[in-house]
């Protein structure tokens, strides 16, 4: 290659500088593309809303995955190849999620996708991932009742969050009355249905001791509901609020609680959607003692967690930056995927699907998370109390990790279903009483979710 280039240079002696520059540029690009051919980067797709209502929660997850990708590259990448993050913005628009997912898989040909927050957006992308055989790591606690061959659920299923939380209220705090407050959409409604069935069947809680209330997204006038809860709680029995109130609406809710003097000592509120990120918008002074159930808190006292926090603060350049549970889920999911790639020696989706089951990686709470055959992972359940500095104090945790259950044991339709993606079963909704596999219902579910 050297000889012809010299020849070209001597030919162009008339305008040496211009030709020299052109030759150097072409040589340079040639060199780069040759290198790129040898080590085509592994593409990591990120499907999180960076604009619209969900940007408040999802932007940090995009940053988390980018940080993990960079860290992996600093350690030499995977299989000797560099990683490259491909970011798209589905703009909190559920049908757009499906389009962007298609763009990632078909156009950018990414090897794996980390993304989604709301259940409806996950339902929207399901058929796309199943059709194009992509891999999706979903990092948020959700309502369960789903197991797809192409999705790995690294957030909590109801039995890893809601059920242990209610057990804590009953066993440790002696609560007898429950106000189930939620935002009006699929996650709170399904979770509350499971909880209501669980409370009645397993703990014999009477009908009049359960109050269920739904509010619209972004509800901001909580006066009446908080007053109602206050009255509900002043009937003499120990009362707690189980909150599946989503995102934004929590700030005015907690503010109203504080102003109306609902103290955690009298009526504790246990929340499933309030983490460190949500608390950054609230003055937590009046909220001390209210609870949240998660699988990770920023206040977890382990060195691996402190390292993660320091890395995060360095990455964001913000001393006040907080970490939260879905970020840990991405951390676990990313490491599991990387481990599976190493194990399989390829990024081929089918090979990864086989390799990843049983993969075990450290979590940030000092234990290990394992990928189960139903594509859910094992997690410890932690109960934390809000502190005045916007952090949670861990007051209780399960003695060991809990494996995620895709199909709830407390709902009539899902009691008999199990998911197992190992050969020979390879089914997400196997009915043990009829011995049949229900097959994929992703397309109908997506349609139903988007129609709402």
């Amino acid at each position: 290659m050297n000889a012809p280039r010299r020849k070209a240079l001597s030919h162009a002696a008339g305008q040496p500088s211009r030709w020299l520059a052109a030759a150097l540029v072409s040589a340079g690009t040639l060199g780069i593309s040759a290198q790129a051919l040898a080590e085509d980067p592994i593409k990591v797709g990120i499907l999180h809303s960076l604009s619209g209502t969900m940007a408040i929660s999802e932007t940090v997850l995009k940053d988390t995955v980018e940080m993990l990708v960079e860290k992996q590259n600093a350690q030499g990448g995977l299989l000797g190849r560099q990683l490259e993050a491909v970011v798209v913005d589905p703009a909190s628009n559920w049908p757009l999620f499906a389009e962007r997912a298609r763009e990632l898989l078909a156009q950018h040909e990414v090897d794996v996708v980390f993304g989604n927050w709301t259940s409806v957006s996950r339902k929207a992308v399901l058929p796309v991932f199943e059709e194009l055989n992509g891999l999706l790591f979903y990092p948020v606690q959700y309502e369960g009742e789903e197991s797809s061959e192409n999705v790995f659920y690294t957030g909590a299923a109801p039995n890893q969050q809601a059920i242990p939380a209610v057990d804590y209220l009953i066993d440790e705090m002696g609560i007898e009355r429950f106000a189930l407050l939620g935002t009006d959409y699929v996650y709170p409604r399904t979770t509350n249905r499971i909880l209501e069935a669980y409370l009645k069947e397993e703990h014999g809680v009477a009908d009049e001791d359960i109050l269920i209330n739904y509010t619209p997204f972004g509800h901001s006038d909580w006066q009446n509901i908080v007053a109602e809860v206050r009255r509900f709680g002043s009937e003499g029995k120990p009362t707690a609020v189980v909150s599946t109130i989503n995102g934004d609406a929590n700030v005015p809710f907690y503010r109203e609680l504080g102003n109306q003097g609902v103290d955690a000592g009298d009526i504790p509120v246990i929340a499933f959607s309030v983490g460190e990120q949500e608390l950054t918008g609230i003055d937590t002074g009046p909220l001390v003692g209210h609870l949240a159930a998660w699988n990770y808190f920023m206040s977890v006292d382990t060195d691996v967690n402190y390292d993660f926090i320091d890395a995060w603060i360095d990455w964001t350049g913000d001393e006040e930056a907080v970490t939260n549970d879905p970020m840990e889920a991405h951390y676990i999911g990313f490491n599991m995927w990387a481990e599976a790639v190493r194990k399989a020696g390829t990024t081929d989706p089918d090979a990864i699907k086989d390799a990843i089951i049983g993969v075990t990686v450290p979590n940030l709470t000092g234990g290990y998370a394992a990928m189960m055959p139903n594509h859910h992972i094992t997690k410890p359940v932690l109960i934390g109390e809000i502190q005045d500095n916007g952090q949670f104090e861990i007051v209780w945790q399960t003695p060991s990790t809990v494996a995620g259950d895709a199909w709830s044991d407390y709902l009539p339709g899902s009691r008999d279903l199990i998911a197992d993606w190992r050969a020979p079963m390879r089914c997400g909704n196997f009915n043990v009483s009829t011995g049949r596999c229900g097959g994929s219902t992703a397309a109908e579910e997506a349609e139903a979710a988007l129609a709402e």
Partner: protein
Amino acid sequence: MRSLLFLWLLVLLVMPLTVHAQTSANDEAAIELLEALDVDSFPAKGEAIEAIVASDHERARYWLQSLLDGRLQRADDGRFVVVLDNTGRDWPVEDALTGEALGEMSRRDLDRISINNALRNQLRSAIAVVDLYSPDLELRRASAERLLGEVDAELAEPLEALIAEEGDRRVSRRLAQALAIHRLEQGEVEAVAELQGSLHPRVRVALARAASGAFDSRAVTGDDPVVADAAQAALVSIEQNLRLNRMAETLYFGLSLGSVLVLAAIGLAITFGVMGVINMAHGELIMLGAYTTWMMQQLLPGQPGLALVLSVPAGFLVAALAGIAIERGVIQFLKGRPLETLLATFGISLILQQLVRTVISPQNRTVVSPEWMSGSIAINDALSLTLNRMVVIAFALAVFAALLLIMRRTRLGLEVRAVTQNRAMARSMGIRATRVDILTFALGSGVAGLAGVALSQLTNVGPNLGQSYIIDSFMVVVFGGVGNLWGTLVAGLSLGVINQILEPWAGAVLAKIIVLVFIILFIQKRPRGLFPQKGRAAEG
């Protein structure tokens, strides 16, 4: 004389030293008390707290309070310290035994002695019992409040003496009630008289339990359910009273929601109602006002109250300037083309939202409530009015009055009315219509900014703030009658009250739908709203 003073000073100087010497002598005991707290099991910690209370140690209350606040921690070297400020990575601490400042320690080297809600309740009660003897009136009041329904036989004895000695009427009445609950539980029928008429939930719970006959078995009067009957009679009048209070509460909730609607809509009543400009970016002007409040609080750290007061003019200015920019940049070119104005301003609203997301953050910002806007004023034991809402109601009325004054009494108001009623005629009379347009739009936008300042105290300060109020604002203005400020006030307040009355039995989602359907039907019947403009002006 001077030597005597000197001697006295010397004594003062030496005294702490001797006290110090004494404490180091009983340091062992103190450390032992604290060691007992540093265990994993919460019940064991509960026992350790009891031990500290029983020890009567001079720092006992300080330890309990620090433990309650989560500031009692153990350093890696085994010393017990109290954290003074737990923000950031390194925290200033002091020695728990001596109160001596120890500089800063890394949070990695500190282990918090964690407590849960049960322990927190236990600590509060323990501190309340200690505070009962405190010379500080506020502490005694809080303590009496806390002890209601928590008096046991052990506490009942000293309580009687304390009630007799107590100088403050509120404290003595509370303590008397607390004692009465205890006596009621013992089956003393006389206790009912003391509790008669009290609206406190704990009193009601005690009476309800008594009415069910729970305490009669212990009564000395035999089989007669005396206590139950007396309690039942007391309950009936209490319930009646409670119902009245509940109605007053709903009315207050309604007025407060209504005042929020009025605030959000009143700027629109000017730009849309008076000028006829459909400004979809109105919500984002509200958002700018809210962000101004946040900015002011960032500029004046530690003084949230002052920052909030200064935000009122600042929020007005920022939103007004943004309004002028929108008017000059876009709206003036689209005069008389409502559809295009709607689309263009909707675009502006999206641009402003994304601008805030990119420049500031997609996350919500914390706006702190000043002390005087947190909590509530208790009218009685069942009815307390939240302070932040009260301030917002007053603020909404003040803004309304000021706007009314401007529109009715100032030259600008006169010119605005002239221009909107007949633009050509007004111009031929020498009014500079363009200038009036700018000023009117600035005024309407500025008022939206004021709404943002108020809303920052009630809801999220985030990029989506404006979106949630734009529909409601248009609803109020149309319902009230376009071009009529009084209509906006009446419409806002009545929609608020209707919503709050509906909410308890229809649920928040359905209540909103019902209100919307009601407005649609109303507009069908009376297209010009509650207070239609009359006369020739209305035709133009």
